[in-house]
């Protein structure tokens, strides 16, 4: 393992990195929302604003070679995996410079280099896929772990439980991260789940589950460390239910009439993951307002550059229509 698990104590530098990574996702997504409004991004576009602590905290628990797979609310995961914001934004605008050369869009992006396996548009489909990546790790006798993210809505899909069963039966190195943002599109957890404590959904498969404050990056990291270690040591899967919240609608086309403005405002003002960390850093004297402003400024520049790139990158060559349907077989 080229990247060792971090020590329990988190350094100031690490905290600042969390701050920076969460802020990058926040600013990137805000900008994506603007570009959508301007018609530069089309189709479905699911923003991650509010949920940043989940992916940033979890990413700190894994190392080189560990895999990540998620559903269609995937921009944050890609940025957290270290994928280039330029390539992500250019995919959102459907340009040649995008990660899928414009052929995937918001919901379908991948990076083999960064071990990010998508970006899947069918609710729950990534769960057996992530379990299969874990299967390949065990088969190849590596000690790699696959983080498999899905939402509260996906926890009602049958294939999720088919995967749970096999993962537990075969002790596969997979961590299931349920991002419970309280709403499956417009249907609240209370209205869609008979058992609303989703971390219990693995009980009948003998998969241990933990409920985690997904709005606190430190708590996410702490739980993530345990779960990743559990999976890596050959004990099989673990479920982390991240209690989180999305500030925006399900997708850009969702007016979010199913919840009250006050609910959003309350979480935003009392539980925001970025503001929370900011307060901690300042209170502990680990950073000043000015330090954090400087970070904010840097990030704005990164995001602005990605927007420029995404607008300047040309549309894919018409020849691209016909490429990547099949791989040319060699030596068969």
């Amino acid at each position, binding site marked *: 393992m080229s990247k060792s698990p971090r020590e329990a104590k988190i350094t100031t530098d690490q905290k600042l990195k969390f701050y920076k990574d969460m802020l990058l996702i926040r600013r990137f997504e805000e900008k994506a929302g603007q570009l959508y409004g301007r018609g530069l991004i089309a189709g479905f576009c699911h923003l991650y604003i509010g949920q940043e602590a989940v992916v940033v905290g979890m990413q700190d628990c894994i190392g080189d070679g560990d895999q990540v797979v998620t559903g269609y609310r995937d921009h944050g995961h890609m940025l957290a995996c270290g994928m280039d914001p330029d390539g992500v934004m250019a995919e959102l605008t459907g340009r040649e410079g995008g990660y899928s050369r414009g052929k995937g869009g918001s919901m379908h992006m991948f990076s083999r280099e960064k071990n990010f396996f998508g970006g899947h548009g069918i609710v729950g*489909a990534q769960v*057996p896929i992530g379990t299969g990546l874990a299967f390949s790790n065990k*088969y190849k006798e590596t000690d790699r772990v696959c983080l498999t993210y899905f939402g509260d809505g996906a926890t009602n899909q049958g294939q999720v439980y088919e995967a749970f069963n096999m993962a537990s039966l075969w002790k596969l190195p997979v961590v299931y991260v349920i991002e419970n943002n309280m709403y499956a599109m417009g249907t609240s957890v209370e209205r869609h789940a008979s058992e609303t404590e989703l971390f219990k959904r693995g009980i009948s498969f003998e998969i241990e589950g933990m409920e985690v404050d997904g709005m606190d990056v430190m708590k996410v990291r702490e739980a993530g460390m345990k779960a990743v270690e559990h999976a890596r040591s050959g004990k099989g899967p673990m479920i982390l239910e991240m209690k989180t919240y999305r500030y925006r609608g399900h997708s850009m086309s969702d007016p979010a009439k199913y919840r009250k403005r006050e609910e959003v405002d309350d979480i935003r003002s009392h539980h925001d993951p970025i503001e929370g960390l900011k307060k901690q850093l300042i209170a502990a004297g680990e950073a000043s307002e000015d330090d954090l402003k400087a970070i904010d400024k840097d990030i704005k520049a990164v995001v602005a550059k990605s927007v420029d790139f995404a607008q300047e990158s040309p549309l894919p060559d018409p020849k691209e229509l016909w490429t990547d349907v099949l791989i040319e077989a060699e030596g068969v």
Partner: protein
Amino acid sequence: MSVEIMMPALSPTMEEGTLSKWLVKEGDTVSSGDVIAEIETDKATMEVEAVDEGTIAKILVEAGTENVKVNSVIAMLAEEGEDAASVEAPSSQPAETISGDEDAEAAPEVEDDVAEGAAGPKPDFKPSNDPEVPEGTTFKETTIRDALRDAMAEEMRRDESVFVMGEEVAQYQGAYKVTRGLLDEFGDKRVVDTPITEHGFAGLGVGAAFGKLKPIVEFMTFNFAMQAIDQIINSAAKTLYMSGGQMGCSIVFRGPNGAASRVGAQHSQDYSAWYAHVPGLKVVAPYDAADAKGLLKAAIRDPNPVVFLEHELLYGETFDVPDVEDWVLPIGKAKVRREGTDVTLVAHSRMVGFALEAAEQLAEAGISAEVIDLRSLRPLDTDTVVESVKKTNRLVCCEEGWRYMGVGAEIVATVIDEAFDYLDAPPARVHQADVPLPYAANLEALSLPGTEDIVKAAKAVSEGI
């Protein structure tokens, strides 16, 4: 009143088997549930239990007898109070299994085990346009079942990343015994019994393929793969494109497809057209054992997802397979099974056998039929079909599936695009009736296409020759 004990069927498709062992002898008394004999096919061994109480009066079929027809009397049982010595064997053996309404069109032969001549003529199977067979090659008689197993075993020996998973593939040795022996050779790491969870293990296979393994996912039948079709199409077939070429998915989905025998609509369906519709997949449907082996080996090596459609009713059929070191065939090449000049018969999978049988009958009627075995449905070798039609000027497309939006529709459209001026008659299509497959023997026979349908269609398009 004495009771006849008959040869039982082990499966819906079994017509005969070997009576391997008697566990009772004449004069023994038996109660209901006692094991009295063991019978076997090349797939399985099963115990025969007594149904009635009484004394074994006569054993009519000796242990070790092969090819004992299902429903033939194998022993006589004297009931209580009856003198066993006075029991006589029935004067004539009862007829074979239910064959349905005699007036209906003949039911296609349903063969499970090796039976000479029962599945129609065995044409000359020395591949005519597979240049890979070197001069002087010898051929080995092999069942389709074993050819598929050999293909998997050879590829698993060759490449550590190849593994097979599915329901009952390991300890049970395969529901249709296609994976027989693989567990012993490769162990349970590479021959993986899954729970009954098609959607889950198809998706898991796709993930494993993204993780650079080469899974062979066996569906007990393709009927059950409908549970998994989202993963096959949305995940396996489309991800390469959606990722701009990054996410290759080298995986084989294989298993029996098409009509079985008397199992009703949910267990009998031809998915050729369904999968062939989807870009990003390759779809293969072989007829004989040489193609089954050569194409499965190619499918396993292929860097793309391949749907490999086998036919349950062909598993027990024996064909010649070239006895060469590494028999691999290219995917996407049709094969001219029989040359002819008057009409082109296009078929795939089990329909090829019927087309060859039809060609034989047509020859007797003075019509020379060319038989093309498509072998691969995506890519589709339209060149071979078009060239043939240019020569014969007539076309009959034969498929086991439904006509509506079917394989034949695609072939006819292609021929009209590319060889319209060569056609001397409107192309014809032979296919399953546009209904879910019925259970009743006569209705099932009426629903499924067979030799007679092909002969009729070929004669219709050949009028005036």
